[in-house]
């Protein structure tokens, strides 16, 4: 999975870093002062680097909990996101991370305890129920056997029932979750695109079948499970989404879903520019686009009608009250 491990001098002795370094003792281990020395360097090529990504172990400084962008997520109240990791071991062509970061290496911040402190303070300061999204800058569960992220944060949130954590993922690494009691305030949100889109644009991502099997087991164990249909992309096969919905709802209990959302393909304009530079040969990015309020999306005639049709197909399976469109 990784070709080397970089480790910040000050993170090196953290027990989590020590355990990971031990796990990867056969890989080159390279010390650095700050993760940015490697991660933020100029003239890196994300696309080439994706062939041999490295893991960077670091300590997160500064603000650890940030306000979630407007329109992101299921709750209109106060919501936040926190990133214990930057980048992802999967390689989805439509992912905005490739336009956001210069490097394809994965940064793992090992000081979870400091994140937990910040979350605790945010909960104490904020009014009412608050939502904390993880998996905004990474996949929450993909690296679970190495990172122990859920293993740490699920029990933490279980102790803070007034707050909700969403783990956004495409991973099937749920063995750890299945070994502990389901936490009603920890939502496992699985992202799906259609079969054709997954085959074409999602490299190294577990198949839809495998993801559904993992979600099914989580549902059976009482975990709140959510579905995220993102990014929505127009396809030649007009039944592609309907078929996807049929498959999913033949495997999952729709009455027990926490929430279901959709989101169009969209990217901040500067990330899109960077992505286009990286993949000038990718048909997805060569299509006609439109930019609104600094966000690029694909030009699509009759987009609203298409969305309405797609939502109608979805509502044949779910309660519309559990549905939202992600507008971020």
């Amino acid at each position, binding site marked *: 999975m990784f070709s080397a491990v970089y480790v910040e001098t000050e993170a090196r002795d953290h027990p989590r870093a020590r355990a990971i370094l031990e796990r990867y003792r056969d890989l*080159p281990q390279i010390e650095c002062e700050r993760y940015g020395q490697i991660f933020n360097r100029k003239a890196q090529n994300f696309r080439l680097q994706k062939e041999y990504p490295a893991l960077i172990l670091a300590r997160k400084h500064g603000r650890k909990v940030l306000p979630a962008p407007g329109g992101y997520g299921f709750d209109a109240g106060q919501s936040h996101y926190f990133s214990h990791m930057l980048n992802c071991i999967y390689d989805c062509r439509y992912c905005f991370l490739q336009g956001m970061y210069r490097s394809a290496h994965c940064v793992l911040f090992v000081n979870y305890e400091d994140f937990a402190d910040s979350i605790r303070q945010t909960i104490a300061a904020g009014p009412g129920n608050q939502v904390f999204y993880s998996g905004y800058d990474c996949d929450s569960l993909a690296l679970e056997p190495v990172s122990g992220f859920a293993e740490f944060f699920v029990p933490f949130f279980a102790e803070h029932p007034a707050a909700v954590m969403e783990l956004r993922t495409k991973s099937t690494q749920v063995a750890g979750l299945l070994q502990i009691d389901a936490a009603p305030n920890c939502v496992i949100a699985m992202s799906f695109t259609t079969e054709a889109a997954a085959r074409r644009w999602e490299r190294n991502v577990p198949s839809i079948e495998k993801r559904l099997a993992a979600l099914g087991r989580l549902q059976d164990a009482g975990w709140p499970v959510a579905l995220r249909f993102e990014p929505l992309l127009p396809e030649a096969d007009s039944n592609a989404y309907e078929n996807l919905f049929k498959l999913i709802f033949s495997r999952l209990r729709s009455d027990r879903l926490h929430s279901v959302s959709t989101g169009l393909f969209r990217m901040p304009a500067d990330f899109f520019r960077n992505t286009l530079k990286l993949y000038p040969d990718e048909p997805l990015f060569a299509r006609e686009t439109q930019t609104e309020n600094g966000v690029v999306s694909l030009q699509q005639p009759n987009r609203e009608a298409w969305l309405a049709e797609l939502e109608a197909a979805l509502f044949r399976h779910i309660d519309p009250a559990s549905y939202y469109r992600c507008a971020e």
Partner: protein
Amino acid sequence: MNGAVNLAVAHRLEAKVLLDWFDLTEIEPKKKFRCYGGSEGIALTVTGMGVENAAAGVRHLHDSQPPGFRAWLNIGIAGHDSAALGEGFLIRRIMHRESGELYWPPVTDLKLPGCELITVAEPETGYPEDAAYDMEGAGFFAAAAGLISTDLVYVFKIISDNRENPVANVDPKQVPDLIRGQESAIRKLVSHLRERSARFAGYYGMPVEFDLLLDKYRFSATRKAGLARLCRRFHALGKQDRLTALARERFRDAASLMTAMDAELARTGKPVI
């Protein structure tokens, strides 16, 4: 798939074996830096010693070549406190001792032994750190990284001296043998770099129509960038044939050509999958 690779060495003795292996012959003799090339897309420059020479040699070879994407590999001898003579290391981190500047060559899955490199101004005799010591690596890397992505710039060092065999005892005549001893690692690295640079060129090379159209019409700098984008979109969308056809047509000027190209691309309404 084979792409282009430029090799840089400090000394002719380091070049000797490489010229032989890769069948390289001298191009433009009597210039400040000796440069060699062959039919395989491999070129070599002998930069001379020290960071400034290393950087200047890299730039010289680059300037003497037609535009294109080339990976860079510095091969040379180095000292190390404890590593055995003849051992080869793919460098993972370079420190320029004089400036404190750090460089981070890419990591690979080639399973070659690796270590840190410290580039010094004078031969190091004390070997204070667990690192290899040379006099060119930092200069080479900084210069090559200004020409291509750092993911295509590698440094490979072979140990010529250590605490028990000090630098003063290095017999220059042994240098070719030290290089020869790492033949398999060097060949592995070169073919790895050739594959990578070929992929890179495949990703970012311009369609041939781009140059044809530049010759045919006058473009401002902004329009030239626009033309590059349009040509790439034609290719990405699988409309090479239409681009070739448009390139053959006669338009009044660059602006009319680009309007026609835009119109053609706008007709791509169908879904991507």
